C-alpha cells in the first residue's frame, strides 16, 4: 500500500511525502480497545479482592473496639461472644504448620531430588511426574477423606484419632505434591553447565547435588515451601473431616502439651467456619476479625517468601 520512499532524491515534496508516511493515519482504535479490555480484566479481579478485604476489615471494627486486639488474639474459643477469642486457633494452626514443615520439607525435597536428578527419563518417571502434578490439583476435601481413613482411623493408636497430629499429617500429605513440584522447579533452574562443571572435576552425582545443585537451589526451595505453608495454613475442608470442627484445646492448668496434642483441637480456618454459622450477631464481627488475622498471617508468610526470593535471587 505504502509506496517506496526516498527514491526521488531530496527536496520539499519528498520531505512532505515522507512526513505523511511516517506520521500514520491517526488513532488506532482497535489496539486502544484491546488495551482497555486488558486493563478491565485486571481491575475486575483487583476490585473483588479489595472489596473482600475492605468489607472484612470494616466488619471486624466493632469486635476490635469492644474486646481489644490482645483479648481476641489470646482468648480461647467460647460460645459466649463476650469471651470468645482465636488464641486456640492460632496455636492449633501453628502446631500443624510445624508438623507440615517437619514432614513436607524433607520428604518433598528428597522426592524432588530423585525425580529431577536420579530418575531415568522413561515411561514410569514421566507417569509419576504427571501423577504428582495432578495430585497437586486434587480438591482438598479428598485429602480430608484420606486423612480421616489413614490418620484418624487406621493410625489411631499413633495419632490419637481426631487430634491436631492427624490434622497436621493430613495437611502435610495435602501439600506434599506441591512441595515436590516447587522443589523440582528450583532444582531445574540450576543450569546444566554447573552440573557439568562438577562432573568434569570428577565429582559423583551426590557430590554434585550436595555441594552445588542443592545450595544454589536452596533459596528457591525455601521460597516455594513457605508458599505451600501459606496454602496449608488457609486450608479448611480436610480439617473439618479429621476432627477440628467444634473442638478446642483443653486449657485447664493441669493439662500438659502432650495432652493438648492428643486432645481435641481447632485451627484458624475451622474457627472461622464455626463462628460464621453461629446465630449471635456479635460473632459476625468476631468472624470478620478472625478472617482479618488469617489474611494478615498469610500475607506475612508470602512477604517473607518474596523477601527471601529477592534477597537470594541468583544471576547465572
Amino acid at each position: 500500500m505504502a509506496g517506496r520512499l526516498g527514491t526521488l532524491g531530496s527536496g520539499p515534496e519528498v520531505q512532505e511525502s515522507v512526513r505523511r508516511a511516517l506520521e500514520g493515519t491517526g488513532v488506532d482504535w482497535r489496539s486502544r480497545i484491546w488495551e482497555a479490555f486488558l486493563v478491565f480484566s485486571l481491575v475486575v479481579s483487583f476490585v473483588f479482592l479489595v472489596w473482600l478485604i475492605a468489607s472484612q476489615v470494616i466488619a471486624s471494627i466493632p469486635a476490635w473496639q469492644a474486646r481489644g486486639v490482645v483479648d481476641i488474639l489470646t482468648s480461647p474459643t467460647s460460645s459466649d461472644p463476650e469471651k470468645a477469642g482465636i488464641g486456640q486457633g492460632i496455636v492449633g494452626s501453628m502446631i500443624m504448620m510445624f508438623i507440615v514443615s517437619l514432614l513436607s520439607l524433607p520428604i518433598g525435597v528428597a522426592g524432588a531430588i530423585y525425580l529431577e536428578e536420579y530418575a531415568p527419563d522413561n515411561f514410569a518417571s514421566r507417569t509419576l511426574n504427571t501423577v504428582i502434578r495432578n495430585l497437586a490439583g486434587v480438591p482438598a476435601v479428598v485429602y480430608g477423606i484420606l486423612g480421616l481413613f489413614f490418620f484418624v482411623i487406621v493410625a489411631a493408636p499413633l495419632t490419637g484419632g481426631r487430634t491436631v497430629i492427624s490434622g497436621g499429617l493430613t495437611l502435610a500429605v495435602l501439600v506434599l505434591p506441591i512441595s515436590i513440584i516447587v522443589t523440582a522447579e528450583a532444582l531445574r533452574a540450576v543450569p546444566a553447565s554447573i552440573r557439568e562443571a562438577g562432573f568434569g572435576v570428577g565429582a559423583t552425582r551426590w557430590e554434585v547435588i550436595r555441594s552445588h545443585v542443592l545450595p544454589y537451589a536452596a533459596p528457591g526451595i525455601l521460597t516455594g515451601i513457605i508458599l505451600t505453608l501459606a496454602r496449608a495454613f488457609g486450608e479448611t475442608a480436610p480439617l473439618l473431616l479429621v476432627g477440628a470442627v467444634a473442638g478446642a484445646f483443653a486449657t485447664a492448668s493441669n493439662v500438659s502439651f502432650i495432652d493438648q496434642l492428643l486432645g481435641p483441637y481447632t485451627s484458624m480456618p475451622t474457627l472461622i467456619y464455626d463462628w460464621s454459622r453461629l446465630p449471635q450477631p456479635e460473632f459476625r464481627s468476631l468472624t470478620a476479625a478472625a478472617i482479618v488475622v488469617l489474611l494478615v498471617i498469610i500475607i506475612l508468610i508470602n512477604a517473607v517468601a518474596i523477601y527471601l526470593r529477592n534477597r537470594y535471587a541468583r544471576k547465572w
Partner: protein
Amino acid sequence: MTEVKQEPSPIAANVKADGSKESGRRVAAMQRMKVAVGGGDQTGAVASESVFEVSNFNAYYGDFRAIKDIDMSIPMNRITAFIGPSGCGKSTLLRCFNRMNDLVPIAHNSGRILYHGVDLYDDKVDPVEVRRRIGMVFQKPNPFPKSIHENVAFGARISGYKGNMDELVERSLRRAAIWDEVKDKLKQPGTALSGGQQQRLCIARAIAVEPDVILMDEPCSALDPVATLKIEELMFELRDEFTILIVTHNMQQAARASDETAFLTMGEDRAGYMVEKGPTSEIFTNPKNRLTEDYVSGRFG
C-alpha cells in the same frame, strides 16, 4: 619405553611457570608407568607415545548416529585439535573421551577408546574415576557461584587431597596464569570475574585435580581476541604436563595452537566422520584430502 620428547614452542619457552618442570616430570613418569601396566602395544611407530587409541568408535543419540567409525590415536603431551563444520560431532567425540556424554540419557556408543591401553567403556570402569584423570574445560566459562578459592579447591577436596589446600590453590592458579589477577580476592565469587578470567579459573579448577588429560570444548568461543590469545599461550605452557584435546571453530586457533589436527565432517546421513588427521602444519598447508583443503582454505563450512 622411550623418553617423551618435547618440542618447546617459542611461547611456552618464554612464559614457563615456576616449578612446573618437576611436576611435569612426575606426571610423565606416572604416565609411563600406567602404559607399562596397561600394555603399551598400541603405541607403534608414532613419534610420541599415545594417550588414547580410538578404534572403530561410533556414538549415537537414540537411533541417530552422531559420529561413525572413528579411528585415531592421540599423542601424549601434545595439543590435538578437532576442527570441522557445525554438527559434525566434534564435541560429541570430545565428550566421549571422559565419558561426559554418559550424562546424556539417550547417548550410547560402540567401538573402543583405549586410555593407556584400558578401554574407557569397560563395564568395570567408573566414569567418576575417568573424569578425575581426564579433566574438562567447557565452551561457556562455568565457574561455580562460589569463591575463587573454593572453585579451585572443590575438585581436589572430593578426590581426597590431604595436602595444604591454600598452596594447591595458589599453584593451580599460577599454572593457569591467573594468580596475579586474583590473588587479592580469593574470597570473592568466581562469577564476578571477566569472561576470560573465568575461563582461566576453570582451567585452574581442572588442573587442580592433577589430571592426565585436559579436554577443551571450544574454550575461547565466548572470549575476545586478547583473552583467546592468553588461553592459547596457556595451552602451550600446559602441554609440558598435560595432553590437551581441543575442539575449535576457529581455524586460525587450530593452526596457531595445536600440534596435531583432526578434520571431521559429516556425510549424507549427517553422521560425523574423520576425514584426515596429521601434524597441524600438514593439515593446513598440504592436506591429503580435497574436503580438508576446501575447509581449511575457507571454501566450505
